């Protein structure tokens, strides 16, 4: 989705005069009953129709055919008038079909985009553009106008659309606590309204005594206004804003430092040195999108003159941030605090207290090794280096105690970071309140019998409360439990009123992002199951009737009094806001000053207690499914964890040593079932079960746990996934993100073995030059030099920097015997594909064959598509995987099928660990590499397909012709990149979760574990009907027995091409301007690591930010960059997707000897593992060759003799 393509941003939109739907008399078959709701509401036939047709009744909806549904949904959009004002929701609520009188902007089959925003776990807010097909939202993308999203989006945001179409969603209100039959009876919202009028009417008289609210934590002006309204009406009511993953220490830390709670807004694009104490700002962070972009902007030097930022990480889990770090120390959380203190001491911040702590550490079991001391000293030097003032930032993570947070604020102030690399925004009352403390107050009140009515909105405390609160039991003590939730959950299970919550895409609201962007939440579709939003339900609780409790009016009224929206200005500002998806960006708040006294005092009060094997440290964080609200989301469940690559599970990460100590060695990677031994983790009197898993880079005596799994009352998808870790987090005396003093033992009863499934079993590159990465110094030294030596046969090499890092510098130049039909040329030097400099790319060979006839496929005519994936920027977050899944209707296969190696993701992120550098400070040891089909010009898959089902297109795309495919799978065998995915069953069509006839019987052979994610066929029928609505209509759904793979989002290319033609924009088939559209993975990528474009576009000038002009497409420029290399380039498959070697920027003062060798001579180490071990003996010889080997000496006489056969064959070929 590009700016240009989006209606919302083409030109300046005049304020469209509101079209009054109510007054439109639209003739349908000559009859005139299509009026506005208010006009026709009394007509019996209209009522009849309304009941029959309006999708308020879930069961009916499920029975209705897809076609009916489309009609309805299309109607609901058209009705809203949205189509007449793209990018903005018309405020009307009425529904009429556009089978006649289609609004002029609506073209059936063409997608429309609308702006909205979404709140995600952990306080994240993302601005979105929603792609809508005939009224069905099908794809979410980042809103480019939203300063937080900037056109990008996270995996969670991408996947949230699947939750909209989740067939397990609650459908009708229920009222339980009566007889069994009555309990099952669906209620209407009228019933609830009537009930609540009466019930809350009574409560109003008592000023709300005995009433308690637990709501999700949210920065939302409308919600805050609603809270005020609730407070005004029920002054004695309790109100708790609750986020189960929130660490109170973050808030407390800022309170200590600034005297009031402040949240950090990072400007990492301005930071040259970043120090993070266990803060995973690229992964598990509310501003992950913003931070990734800022961080990545300084991670990809395109020329040897460009600088880079430097990231120091001290952490106890292995996070995405740690994986990108230039220096990383793995440490138990307590140890991290001491390093922070040591750094403060070195910087002279809160010196005496810091010294004391650093001293404690030095005393305790030698944690402060000499290496760490050196690390801290050099780090301090680096931070204070000349010109660094205001260009550095020190960050503390949620596992760290409040004192460390305060200390980091202090250090930032001392280093001049405040106002430069980090800004602060005041927290709202709800945001700053402590979730756990609030919940405890309510639990105590419940236990004391003081609460008669408990209202839970968007929260699930019965599942995620700390274990010592026993909240699920306490809940039952309130006479009325009213819960508003989207899907079945543990809390709703224990409630008297079950109220279905509307999905974000179905409701009105507003949100404030971390950086202070206020954005609207507007519905894209009428609620599928007649659900209501939280604002509407709260309004009903405040006494509004069903008619009045209307989300649109509620939000609108709030904004009528917001600055910039007052008076005559309102309508314009409101419409503009809805159109852009941004209401306002908050003013910068003044930089608060740090109070050093309390910081030192807090630090002084902190004591270091090292972890040991019987007192282990626990660290908590969020995994793929967030805090648990996405537990029933199949895409996120099947998204491999970026680091462990585990799917459908949360594992307890422990170090190899710890695992050994407790006898927890897991089955080898070659084992069929991959069992791990279940452990009991007990702390503070609470115990949970967990499945331990070892990966490198985890400190000893530390267990890293992930929230959100192990749900009990959940839909079919989430059942039986993982283990719940909430009961042991947030106990008295510890925070939700950290606990000390835990014991682990092998589980003695119940399930003792547990199957853990990963998509990647092997983490070593085996010395192959797959991910290429060098240090900045090596890049600066050698980046511009090309290897133009002759190979040992006398053929000219021409290798750029990154190509020299791999096999090509060891293999003879590839001489093709055959004329490439697409080029009319014998593909010569393998490196040519990436030499697009000065417009002379290799895609410019003759387009005529010998007889002068044009070739059917001609690579010399544009556009020739290509992709560049920057391994320097890529943070491994896997948003691309989900974006691709959403765009291309990629099915989910379930845990058991993944275990067999049948996951279907078109783009995956390979993760490699390198060598033994996980200890010490040089840990640049995790590498990410997104791989999708690379669209080889000499595609090995194409030649072997017997039925021509995979062929080359004129624009260089390797087409997969589903209709033609018979499924021999030879293509997949011959694909060196292993990117082809085969539909072993009808994953996409009927059985979305990998189920097949007789599966259970099959699984039971050999006593394998049951597939918990198996959906019984009866339910699947239902599931499919509704899930189909979320499918992208522009992409075929593949049947069983068909091979599939990335197709470079061909549908988007064609959409762009049509757009160009329709709009009569400059350009034609030959030329779609660069950046006019983006492919799905590129579009989502928060760190902008993926670039797609026309490789032949090397001459067009494109304006760039900062008044500069770029010549040629970004993709062509990047392909020509010396950092680009072709993965497995020596095979001469000539991939169109090239990768760019990653660059790291270690501190020269901390570089080990081995690493220094790599900097001095980077070319003999494929991958990052010492490269070709077997070729080390050649290193000396090669060194000379690279340095200054005279060309005429390239022939080694001995070699010439032994290779005479080869020479002869070259002569015969005329090479």
């Amino acid at each position: 989705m590009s700016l240009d393509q989006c209606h919302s941003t083409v030109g300046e939109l005049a304020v469209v005069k509101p079209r009054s739907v109510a007054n439109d008399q639209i003739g349908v078959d000559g009859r005139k009953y299509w009026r506005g709701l208010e006009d026709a509401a009394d007509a019996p036939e209209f009522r009849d129709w309304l009941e029959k047709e309006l999708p308020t009744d879930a069961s009916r909806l499920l029975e209705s055919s897809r076609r009916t549904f489309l009609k309805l949904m299309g109607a609901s959009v058209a009705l809203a008038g949205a189509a007449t004002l793209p990018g903005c929701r018309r405020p009307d609520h009425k529904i009429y079909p556009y089978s006649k009188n289609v609004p002029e902007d609506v073209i059936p089959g063409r997608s429309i985009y609308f702006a909205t925003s979404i709140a995600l776990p952990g306080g994240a807010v993302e601005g979105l553009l929603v792609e809508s097909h005939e009224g069905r939202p099908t794809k979410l993308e980042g809103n480019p106008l939203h300063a937080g999203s900037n056109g990008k989006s996270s995996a969670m945001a991408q996947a949230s659309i699947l939750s909209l179409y989740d067939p397990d969603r609650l459908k009708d209100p229920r009222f339980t606590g009566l007889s069994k039959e009555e309990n099952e009876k669906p209620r209407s919202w009228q019933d609830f309204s009537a009930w609540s009028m009466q019930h809350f009417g009574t409560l109003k008289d008592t000023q709300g005594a005995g009433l308690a609210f637990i709501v999700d934590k949210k920065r939302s002006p409308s919600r805050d206004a609603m809270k005020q309204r609730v407070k005004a009406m029920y002054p004695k009511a309790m109100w708790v804003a609750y986020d189960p993953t929130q660490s109170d220490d973050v808030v407390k830390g800022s309170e200590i430092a600034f005297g009031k709670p402040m949240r950090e807004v990072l400007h990492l694009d301005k930071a040259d040195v970043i120090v993070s104490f266990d803060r995973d700002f690229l992964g598990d962070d509310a501003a992950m999108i913003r931070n990734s972009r800022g961080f990545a902007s300084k991670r990809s030097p395109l020329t040897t003159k460009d600088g880079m930022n430097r990231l120091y990480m001290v952490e106890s889990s292995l996070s995405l941030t740690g994986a990108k770090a230039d220096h990383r120390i793995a440490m138990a959380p307590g140890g991290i605090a001491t390093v922070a203190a040591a750094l403060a001491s070195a910087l002279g911040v809160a010196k005496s207290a810091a010294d004391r702590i650093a001293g404690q550490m030095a005393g305790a079991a030698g944690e402060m090794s000499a290496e760490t001391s050196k690390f801290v000293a050099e780090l301090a030097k680096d931070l204070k280096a000349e010109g660094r003032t205001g260009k550095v930032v020190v960050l503390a993570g949620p596992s760290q105690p409040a004192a460390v947070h305060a200390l980091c604020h202090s250090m930032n102030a001392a280093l001049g970071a405040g106002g430069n690399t980090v800004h602060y925004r005041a927290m709202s009352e709800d945001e700053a309140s402590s979730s756990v403390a609030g919940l405890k107050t309510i639990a105590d009140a419940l236990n004391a019998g003081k609460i008669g009515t408990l209202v839970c909105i968007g929260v699930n405390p019965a599942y995620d409360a700390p274990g010592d609160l026993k909240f699920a039991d306490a809940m039952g003590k309130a006479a009325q439990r009213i819960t508003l939730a989207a899907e079945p959950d543990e809390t709703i299970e224990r409630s008297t009123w079950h109220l279905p919550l509307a999905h974000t895409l179905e409701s009105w609201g507003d949100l404030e992002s971390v950086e202070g962007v206020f954005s609207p939440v507007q519905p894209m579709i009428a609620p599928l199951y007649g659900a209501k939003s939280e604002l509407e339900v709260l309004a009903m609780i405040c006494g509004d009737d069903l008619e009045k409790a209307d989300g649109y009016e509620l939000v609108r009224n709030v904004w009528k009094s917001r600055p910039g929206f007052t008076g005559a200005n309102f309508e314009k500002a409101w419409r503009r806001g809805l159109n852009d998806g941004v209401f306002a960006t908050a003013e910068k708040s003044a930089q608060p000053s740090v109070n050093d006294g309390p910081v030192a005092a807090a630090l002084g009060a902190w004591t270091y207690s090292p972890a040991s094997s019987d007192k282990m440290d626990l660290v908590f964080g969020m995994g793929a499914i967030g805090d648990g609200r996405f537990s029933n989301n199949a895409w996120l469940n099947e998204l491999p964890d970026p680091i462990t690559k585990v799917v459908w599970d949360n594992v307890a990460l422990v170090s190899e040593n710890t695992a050994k100590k407790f006898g927890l060695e897991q089955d080898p990677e070659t084992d069929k079932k991959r069992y791990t031994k279940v452990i009991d983790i007990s702390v503070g009197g609470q115990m949970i079960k967990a499945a331990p898993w070892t990966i490198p880079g985890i400190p000893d005596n530390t267990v890293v746990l992930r929230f959100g799994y192990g749900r009990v009352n959940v839909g079919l998808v989430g059942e039986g996934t993982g283990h719940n870790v909430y009961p042991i987090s947030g106990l008295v005396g510890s925070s939700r993100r950290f606990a000390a003093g835990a014991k682990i033992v092998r589980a003695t009863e119940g399930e003792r073995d547990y199957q853990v499934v990963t998509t990647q079993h092997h983490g070593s590159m085996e010395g192959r030059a797959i991910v290429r990465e060098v240090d900045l110094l090596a890049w600066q030294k050698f980046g511009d030099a090309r290897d133009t030596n002759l190979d040992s046969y006398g053929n000219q090499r021409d290798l750029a920097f990154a190509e020299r890092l791999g096999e090509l510098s060891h293999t003879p130049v590839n001489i093709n015997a055959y004329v490439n039909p697409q080029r009319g040329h014998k593909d010569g030097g393998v490196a040519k594909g990436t030499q697009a400099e000065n417009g002379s790319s290799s895609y410019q060979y003759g387009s005529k064959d010998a007889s002068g006839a044009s070739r059917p496929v001609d690579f010399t005519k544009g556009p020739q598509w290509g992709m560049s994936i920057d391994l320097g920027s890529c943070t491994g977050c896997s948003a691309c995987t989900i974006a691709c899944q959403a765009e291309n209707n990629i099915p989910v296969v379930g845990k058991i099928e993944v275990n067999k190696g049948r996951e279907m993701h078109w783009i995956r992120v390979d993760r490699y660990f390198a060598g033994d550098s996980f200890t010490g400070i040089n840990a640049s040891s995790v590498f990410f590499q997104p791989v999708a089909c690379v669209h080889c010009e000499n595609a090995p898959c194409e030649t072997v397909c017997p039925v021509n089902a995979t062929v080359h297109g004129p624009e260089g795309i390797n087409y997969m012709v589903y209709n033609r495919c018979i499924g021999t799978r030879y293509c997949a065998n011959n694909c060196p990149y292993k990117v082809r995915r085969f539909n072993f069953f009808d994953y996409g069509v009927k059985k979305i979760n990998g189920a097949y006839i007789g599966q259970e019987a099959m699984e039971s052979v050999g006593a394998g574990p049951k597939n918990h994610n198996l959906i019984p066929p009866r339910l699947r029928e239902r599931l499919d009907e509704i899930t189909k609505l979320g499918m992208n209509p522009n992409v075929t759904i593949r049947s069983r027995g068909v091979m599939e793979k990335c197709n470079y989002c061909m549908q988007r290319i064609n959409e762009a091409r049509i757009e160009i033609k329709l709009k009569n924009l400059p350009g034609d088939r030959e030329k779609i301007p660069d950046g006019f559209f983006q492919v799905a993975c590129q579009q989502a990528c928060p760190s902008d690591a993926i670039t797609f474009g026309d490789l032949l576009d090397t001459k067009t000038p494109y304006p760039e930010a900062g008044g500069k002009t770029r010549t040629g497409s970004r993709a062509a420029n990047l392909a020509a960059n010396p950092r680009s290399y072709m993965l497995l380039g020596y095979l001469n498959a000539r991939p169109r997707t090239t990768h760019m070697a990653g660059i790291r920027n270690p501190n020269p003062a901390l570089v080990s000897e081995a690493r220094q060798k790599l900097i001095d001579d980077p070319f003999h180490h494929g991958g990052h593992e010492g490269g070709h071990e077997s070729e080390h003996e050649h290193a000396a010889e090669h060194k000379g060759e690279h340095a200054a080997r005279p060309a005429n000496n390239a022939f080694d006489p001995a070699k010439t003799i032994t290779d005479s056969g080869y020479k002869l064959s070259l002569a015969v070929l005329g090479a």
Partner: protein
Amino acid sequence: MSAIHPDEINAGRLTGAIPTDRPQPLDERTGDGTLIDDPAVRAPLVLNNRSFHDITNMVCGYVEEKPAGWWLAVAGLASTLAGVGTLMIIYLLITGVGVWGLNNRVDWAWDITNFVFWIGIGHAGTLISAILCLLKQKWRTSINRAAEAMTIFAVICAGTFPGIHVGRVWFIWMVFPIPNANGIWPNFKSPLLWDVFAVSTYFTVSALFWYMGMIPDMATLRDRAVGRLKASSSGPTVAPFLKLRVDQLRAWIYGFLSLGWRFSSRHWQHYEKAYLLLAGVSTPLVLSVHSIVSFDFATSILPGWHTTIFPPYFVAGAIFGGFAMVLLLMIPCRELYPNMKDLITLRHLENMAKIILVTGSMVGFAYAMEFFIAWYSGNKYEADVFQWNRVVPTWLSARGAPYWWAYWAMISCNVISPQLFWFRRFRTSAFWIFIVSFIVTIGMWFERFVIIVTSLHRAFLPGQWGMFFPTPVDILTFVGTVGIFLFLFMLFLKFLPAFAMSEIKNVTPQASPHEHH
């Protein structure tokens, strides 16, 4: 042969008991007398001085006799297995290829392993018939018919797998160059397409060759049935309630199949010519079909597959495995059928054992060459496939090959076990030959498994390494094809002339003009 005396017919009905032994004085130290070292002495190819008549009686007797108990037992077992296999195939077709253990790392596993295995088995028959015929190896005559039958049945089993392993069986016709309105042809660059042509051609020619060779013998069966019908009004009927006599049925069926053969000289002349021509046509096919099957791998770019040595290596392996299978089938028959030892002598077995030794060593050489080239090429990926995917066991190195046992099973079965045949004691012992043949057959299955699975499971990108584990359906499908193969072979033994009578008679001493009788 034109006139048949009724007595002879009656005599023929009691095969096994009737041919009286007319022992030749043979040196007992040379096994059954055929293992003569003296180059001056021609070892007899048929023992016990069998007359033409005896041979006819014996061979036709195998068909005309009531089936023995062991035959019913074996055929019953085989048909049960075949039924199970068929059910598995139906299940696969209904449900999807996913019921096998294949995955996106190892996209071919047992399916293609079994295909190549059976195709390899299918080599010996045509080799014996065609190449040995052209080379005038007279000893081929007593084994060629059964070997050819085995070939046909093995190719049927082989053809099953490419057919059912594709994702959408109902579109399999797309591999054939059928003119269509879309103007889309199969991809003639794909070795899978060459396979389609190679295997179907091979099957057609082999079947023709086999059938044509059987015409005179089927005419003999026909004539004997007709003779019996004429000579006697009674005889076994098809069923008690059906008055149709078995011999009547034989007369019809064999009569139809023998295409009006009248044993005339003209027929013989044409027959001999056609036989020679088909032998000539078949000979290159023997070499081509497995070469082309090997192209499925050799033309790919996968280390472990992309090997120029594959065509000759596959052909040698196929002959190796095929001969092992012939022995595996014929040695028990020799024991179980009366008088069969007169036709298949120890010398036959020894000759075949020698071929196994030679081809086994060729295969061993090919294995060695793969290593040499992997090292010589200096290609890390290639070397890794051999070192880390196949050879080094997991207990020796953590990085070792999880399928090391498959590789070493292959080496011990295919390279080491045939070395026993350097010793005469082993290669002249039916028991040991049977054992070794059995081991070789297992080894040849493992060879294909090793080539296919161990190359695929750890290919270029270590991040995409994965394992293959067979499911019960995998196993039962393979067992099912064994059943199909065995059942077809049992039917062949019962209903078709298992020996080329006319040819055997040709190589008896009586047929020689120099015979003193």
